[in-house]
């Protein structure tokens, strides 16, 4: 019987660990709570994003913190974060903890749209502003959340700028072929691109999906040749995009613009040599993108320049950041701007400041949807890069948007033959 009592006591002790730690002294800083995927499948993206965010906090704290007008002084930023293991199991538990035990004032979302949606329910319930970094889905932004603000350009606008490029450089080009991988992401992107093209008066002459893992595009290329389009857009992932670009080159397909998802943004794409030449593709951000203070003008510049950011990031981590690192940094930067504008750390005031926000940063424009898709990013647009040849070497250049370009677009694509 004694042992049994001991067993029960043992089990009860285990529960004690659950009790929230009590006692919290006066406000020493602005607590920003989040979970990151230190383990599991989102590990590398999440880590890079965290590095960006951390760099931002270090820079802010080096200046004494964020100036909060309501209390007339600077408050340093304090991070509270846990590992969510890239899994939904603990996301809600940890966000509840961040809000109640750690007294987080603001939240940053986990990586990926699914985890963000789970965390959003908690953020919403407690009325906490949450910056969604690393969630590019549109579908979580018409779900009635009113405290979640997206940093990335949503999937629906990944390829729409290709049409804008065409209208700008060649208003006569009207025929578009869309060939895409039959995956959820590519399908969502290309369906939106098709709607946009038709809305803008383009003629979508081909709209076809290929299976994931396709290695022979002959039948698609025959169809493309038969419809004689001005531009080809689509793609999916790296391997299929690379193969598609290669076979377009081998078959000497003569079009004016080729724009593919994912593959052109990957450095290994250069190994295709001439087949990669003049292929364009969208990216959330590129180190080469030169959004300039002067060009931003009335739209209001905020934060460091691209060069300053890259230099600081390289100094801290030893390499040039990709878009995840930039996204993490900007999530912090946007929050900082909103707190400064609101002059307070009260959630509803900061929320209103975010609604009003229209700024340009090194990462591009930032503006949030306040309509049906509340919180969705509508200011930021994809930058388009193009593979060009310089001194016999393949180089990536940013060609769009014009205010951020590092080189002029080489047009038409068929110039390379």
């Amino acid at each position, binding site marked *: 019987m004694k042992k049994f009592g001991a067993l029960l006591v043992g089990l009860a002790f285990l529960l004690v660990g659950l009790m929230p730690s009590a006692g919290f002294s006066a406000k020493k800083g602005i607590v920003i709570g989040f979970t990151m995927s230190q383990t599991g499948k989102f590990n590398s993206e999440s880590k890079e994003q965290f590095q960006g965010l951390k760099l931002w906090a270090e820079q802010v704290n080096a200046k004494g913190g964020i100036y909060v007008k309501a209390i007339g002084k600077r408050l340093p930023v304090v991070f509270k974060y*846990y590992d969510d293991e890239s899994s939904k199991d603990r996301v809600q538990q940890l966000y509840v903890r961040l809000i109640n035990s750690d007294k987080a004032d603001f939240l940053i979302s986990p990586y990926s749209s699914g985890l963000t949606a789970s965390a959003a*329910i908690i953020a919403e319930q407690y009325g906490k502003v949450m910056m969604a970094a690393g969630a590019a889905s549109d579908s979580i932004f018409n779900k009635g959340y009113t405290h979640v603000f997206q940093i990335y350009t949503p999937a629906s606008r990944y390829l729409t700028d290709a049409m804008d490029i065409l209208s700008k450089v060649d208003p006569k080009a009207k025929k578009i072929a869309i060939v895409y991988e039959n995956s959820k992401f590519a399908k969502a992107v290309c369906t939106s691109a098709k709607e946009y093209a038709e809305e803008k008066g383009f003629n979508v002459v081909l709209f076809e999906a290929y299976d994931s893992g396709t290695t022979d595009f002959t039948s698609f290329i025959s169809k493309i040749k038969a419809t004689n389009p001005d531009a080809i857009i689509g793609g999916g992932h790296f391997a299929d995009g690379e193969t598609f670009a290669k076979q377009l080159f081998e078959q000497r397909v003569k079009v004016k613009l080729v724009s593919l998802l994912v593959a052109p943004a990957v450095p290994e794409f250069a190994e295709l040599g001439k087949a990669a030449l003049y292929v364009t593709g969208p990216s959330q951000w590129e180190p080469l993108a030169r959004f300039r203070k002067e060009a931003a003008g009335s739209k209001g510049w905020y934060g460091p320049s691209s060069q300053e950011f890259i230099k600081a990031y390289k100094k801290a981590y030893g390499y040039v950041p990709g878009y995840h690192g930039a996204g993490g940094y900007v999530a912090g930067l946007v929050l900082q701007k909103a707190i400064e504008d609101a002059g307070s750390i009260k959630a509803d005031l900061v929320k209103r400041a975010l609604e009003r926000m229209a700024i340009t940063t090194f990462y591009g424009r930032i503006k949030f949807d306040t309509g049906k898709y509340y919180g969705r990013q509508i200011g930021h647009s994809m930058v388009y890069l193009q593979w060009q040849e310089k001194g016999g070497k393949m180089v990536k250049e940013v060609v769009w948007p014009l205010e951020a370009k590092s080189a002029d677009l080489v047009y038409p694509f068929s110039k390379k033959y």
Partner: protein
Amino acid sequence: MERGKTLFWLIPFLVFIVALPPVTGSVTLREGIFLILMYVTLASSLNVIMGYTGYVSFGHIVFYGIGGYISFYLMLRDGMHLIPAMILGGIGAALAAFALGEAVLRLRGAFFAIATIGVNEAVKALVNNLNFIGGAEGLFFNFSVYKAYGGAARAIWFSYYTMAAVTLITVVASYLIKMSKFGLGLRAIREDEDAAIILGVNAKRYKSLAYAASAFFPGMAGAVFFFKAGNIEPHDAFHLIKSIEMIFMVMLGGYGNVAGAFTGALVYERLKGFLLVNPLFKNLHMAISGVVLLLIVLFMPQGIIGFIREKSKKLRGVLE
């Protein structure tokens, strides 16, 4: 102590745990206990097929995913209330298990374990490609769904109590199964299936029923969990790692033992939860929990409860 008294302490203890968050008013505590309850449900139901019958179902999480998807779809499309949707999710999972059991339960040992992994991956791939249930992107609730339950805060409390009820039913059911003639048949199958058949145990029927029973409760747990999470994706619904965690909890507490599955789930969740938020260990939690678990398995292969049962004759009756 007499035999058959396990539930006399297990149920009050469970009720005590469940009552802690509303009494203390702590939502942080509630979140932790919600996970404990879910893990107890998963471990206790896996115990029926794995512990009693001796069939190690490696991909058992598939039933949690199936139950979750069925109920989520019903709640999203038809605006069904959580409770009926959850029961339908459980029934769907049980039916799926019964049908699958007819095929995979013919296999024994490692072949069965591998086949169940295959089933999980196949269902995941299928769901990934079914557009009407959201494909790879999954399904998302509109936040207004929770209005029917009195707002998100109340909906989460509601899902907490629902999970508590599911857990209670699971623990009682797993105890009753073990103590019944059916349970005796299952244990006979575990010890020697051929001998059991010769002695008149309808092994095929028994195994299928045990498999269906062990799928019913995870199906309901999945329904509650994804209701609370507000969205469901194939990657989370059919998460193989969680399947392995379930096996681990059963092994940790004690194979084939009602109090064992319960204790295993409780200890595992607390250990992981503690390491995850502890400032000292939070970057090393995976490594540390791995080492701790390895030590337990090496030195207490019969699990915590099995170990205590072995050491104390008196306690055997209350630790079934």
